[in-house]
């Protein structure tokens, strides 16, 4: 049995290598809001320009952890993705060949890295290799979240209805990442630009968060876009 400190669930069976069987060999990816049928929602709700909502397709998500060996993790991330480990409440983004990688500060010993879904395993392996024997942990949590984008002239108003955090542009600045309470759920939110926000939501809560956003946006007019 192998004794390395590796989560090897994808070791031999990454998504790209498909095994051979019958008619169900193409795994179908379902996002957390698949059941909501965005297409039909988009048709029904495209009534205004106040707020635009989008659920992104399933994204690769890795939790990166390190305490004393944080420099090792930082170096590993840098070498594998040219990405710096962000400081408190910050995020760093690298776009390479049309692929986007974003590392978010979650806690002093925790970061959330998003990447293309298919690349998650490889990135995990690369970082682990680069970090060598240092004490770090990486967990693939791609299935555990969905990403919702909120934009439009009234996006900040909707945010004010939803989270207790001070989202004034002078406080929730571009690039800032905040874990906070979203009504009765929790989210990781990032400010991408004025009136443009990203919510990373636990999959099982996605329906609730989406519904909430829809209700909170209603007065401004919502359009739902499909990615």
């Amino acid at each position, binding site marked *: *049995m*192998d*004794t*390395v*400190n*590796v*989560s*090897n*669930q*994808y070791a*031999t*069976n*990454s*998504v790209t290598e*498909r*095994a*051979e*069987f*019958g*008619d*169900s060999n193409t*795994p*179908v*990816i*379902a*996002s*957390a809001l*698949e*059941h909501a049928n965005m297409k039909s929602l988009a048709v029904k709700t495209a009534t205004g320009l106040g707020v635009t909502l989008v659920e992104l397709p*399933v994204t690769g998500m890795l939790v990166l*952890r390190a305490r004393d060996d944080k420099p090792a993790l930082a170096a590993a991330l840098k070498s594998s993705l040219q990405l710096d480990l962000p400081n408190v409440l910050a995020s760093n983004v690298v776009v390479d060949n049309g692929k986007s990688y974003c590392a978010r500060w979650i806690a002093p010993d925790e970061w959330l890295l998003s990447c293309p879904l298919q690349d998650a395993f490889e990135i995990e392996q690369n970082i682990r290799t680069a970090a060598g024997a240092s*004490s770090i*942990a990486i*967990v*693939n*949590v*791609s*299935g*555990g*979240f969905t990403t919702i984008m909120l934009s439009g002239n009234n996006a900040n*108003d909707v945010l*004010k*209805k939803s*989270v*207790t955090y*001070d989202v004034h542009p002078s406080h929730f600045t571009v690039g800032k990442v905040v874990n906070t309470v979203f*009504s*009765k*759920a929790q989210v990781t939110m990032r400010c991408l630009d004025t009136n443009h926000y990203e919510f990373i939501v*636990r*999959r*099982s*809560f996605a*329906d*609730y968060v989406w*519904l*909430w956003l829809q*209700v*909170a946006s209603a*007065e401004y007019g919502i359009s739902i876009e499909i990615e």
Partner: protein
Amino acid sequence: MVNFVKGRFVQNYRLPSGGRINRNKVLTFRYNNRYYKGYEGDTLASALLANGVDIVGRSFKYSRARGIMCAGVEEPNAIMQVGATEATQIPNVRATEQSLYDGLVCSSVKGFPSVRFDFMSLVGRVAGGAMGPGFYYKTFMFPAFMWETYEKFIRKAAGLGRSSRERDPDTYDHMHQHVDVMVVGGGASGLMAALSAARAGARVIIADEQSEMGGALLHHYKEIDNMPALDWVQQVCDELDANENVQRFTRSVVTGLHDHNFLTINERRTHHLGDAAPQGMTRERIHKVRASSVVLATGAHERPLVFGNNDLPGCMQCSAVSQYIRRYAVMPGTSLVVMTANDSGYQCAFDWFDVGREVVAIVDTRANPDGDVFVQAKERGIEVITGSAVIEARGGERVRKAVVAAINDKGTFVTGEPTELLCDTIASSGGWSPAVHLSCHTGSRPVWNDDIFGFVPGETPENNIAAGRVSGAQTLSDCLREGIKAGADAAASCATLHGQASSDSLSTPKVVDVKQGAAMAMYLVPHTKTPTRAPKQFVDMQNDVTAAALQVSTREGFESIEHVKRYTAMGFGTDQGKTGNVNGMAIVAKTLGQTIAQTGTTVFRPNYTPVTFGAVAGSNKGALFDPKRFTPMHKWHVEHGAKFENVGQWKRAWYFPREGERMQDTLNRECVATRASVGILDASTLGKIDIQGKDAREFLGRVYTNAWAKLEPGRCRYGLMCGEDGMVMDDGVTSCLAENHFLMTTTTGGAASVLSWLELYHQTEWPEMDVYFNSVTDHWATMTISGPNSRALLAKVCSDIDLDKDAFKFMDWRAGTVAGAPARVYRISFTGELSYEINVPAHYGLHVWEALFEHGREFDLTPYGTESMHVLRAEKGFVIVGQDTDGSITPIDMDHAWAVANNKPFSYIGKRGMAREDCLRPNRKQLVGLETVDPNTVLPEGAQAVRNPAQSIPMTMVGHVTSSYYSANVGRSIAMAVIRDGLNRMGESVFFPLADGSVVEAKICNTNWVDPDGARHKS
């Protein structure tokens, strides 16, 4: 008085010009089934007065006629039922706060059959004398059984308005706000505070409960900076509105000031628009404001004086009279007597006089008033009767006369012969009570100020700044100056602005102040008779509390003002004593021979004015009451007719009934199919925690009761978790993924608390340990296939794991691909059958689930829910923590001694707790199986066991049923129970006396009903 003609435009009491109303917009409304007209800009109260409606309610206890007394939130009498339809009924609307809208329907809340002729008032007249304070406590207790009959009648008379019987058609929402400076009140002081804070660069909110900014300036016209005051107000508002850092809210009451400067604003967005909110708008919004500093510029409420029959319609606050005349162009009557103990009362006489109506006299309680207003009154030719008071009002249902008499200097007794003045309105002013309410919400006590004869805010934990009338400022220029300073100081104290707060300082606007004469401390006006014998002198109109009642209760020993409040109900009403409390305190103080400062106030609490439950709930109702958590396969369950069970926030498939099946039929089918072939359960809700690090294994050893030192990668083990008290807390299977890497599963309900528990011990007790915890509950979709055909089924969708029974053994796990998706498959079993728990990333969950069904047809793959899962595990005697345990069960009690390792080097959590004296005593309740003597009888879960069913009540109970089912597989009922000393009493009978009188006998047995040797799950 006035001729009411349906639909005719009467408004006999409307002045031909003036007021801040829009005469071009005529509004029709209905009050007590008659139609009236008013104008845009009216309140319901001003419109009623314009139409000459002077009785708006009946009092609670004595059923006396009551009229409109005030013009603002402090109004105690004009309480209305509003709403044109059943669903839009609103009880207890203050007519003075309700803007008029077209089609408004309202009625008075008290009075049967009508407010004009009231049946209860007869009762009040007869019984009123007997209804002193504490009336109920001294009566009705004999005979004992009759109290509840009396109570029914008392309750019938209770309450003001009525709740709707239907659902509210409107919605409500909330908004979180963060500001540097929150200014409460938009009068002269508040406006200046907001402006100076805004100029200093602060983020500011200013909120006022009224429909427009200006506060007292709205009726107390003056010139400011050489322009009409309201032009000046407009100018300030324009500047505030142009500043993007300022939010200005009207119709917005600050209802509470909580710890660390957290405030709630109730913004009534649509109350002035109609019964129901316009499409797309929420009816009310609550702003939850976190402010660095708060400026309280809440002004003051005028205190009417307490005299005989002071509740007669026609008795009003002086300032209210001014407001009706100047703001609404409404005359509340035809001839006025003013009684005042200070200069401010004169203004209403001037306002009345200046529109050409009769002022009979100003009765000034002071012997020698010497302010400018005294001179001005003389100039107008108004008679001023000094050193006197209106000791009593007379009239049937409206003031007809004021009884005036000379009083001594201190205002404590009548010195002269009473004379009567004919009038229909008596306006009184005893002074002003600063609106200190908010300053008290975090526990601060207001402080008595002898200069103004009122309480001003005391020191608050957050050093909030009071400015203007609320702090005792007496002149408009003082108010303006204080406002400017407060705003600047508030901005300067904000951390975010430190240093950079530019004081582009505001110069104090120019105003001309008049010379003020000294006020007199006056609360209860003396009468020739003592309060108990004089005509009733009301302190709290809404609760019919009189001066006499206060004196009586004080003499009965209720000396604390808090006792007085509770004994008499003073200040308990919907107005919370805004006009009456200070008068009441003064009366109590005097009775006890102490000062008002010594007597103190009762506690002011939120809400400043009442807030609808709808607003407080906001959008957190219906589907948004609480999150529904869904598994990745939820959609499939819905499409296949599942019934759901709430487990925490999760929706779990409970069972999958087919057409025509009763629940038990479904369970029988699901359970039999599973053991006969293969069944499938969605187990995605189980908590899953990824644990990595060199010390992960040691950590497991410390938090679980059993041993982990030897678990190899690729293997799984059941773990039992206790609290430090040794009681079972959670359980689940943990797998070794790699030497330093584990996956822990927890119960569905325990997921969050177990993760927190692990973090707690790691972060605070053992920070030196190298270990990381991460929740992966949502990441994995988990489906358990169970039954003899599960291997064959799995083989159809998984080719890269060797499924051979020896290669992939019971309690092994393997990584592989299932239906094309990367998977971890665990060979663990909660049913006792050959089982595989397939885990795939959640986004593949539905796909894999469906693939299993595609291939499962030939095996009759049967979906089952939590209920069959419960039956199947009970057939094997597996426990469910939380159902079979209750926080008082140790692993030993649970018959899980096998899961307790006593030779681990570290004293793991739970070990010491289990060793306490009471946990070691014999005769504890232990988990055992039960078989009813009649195999078809299913014991109710929760049935209590006794050894001797013939014992009389109270019976000695020895335990209870924790789980109980009919098992189609076993062919009889089975149950689990905790029974005292149960493990030593196998084969003995226990009895269950049930609610229907029957007694069920059952025998204690062990719990392994199916496959006791475990051959099946190992097969």
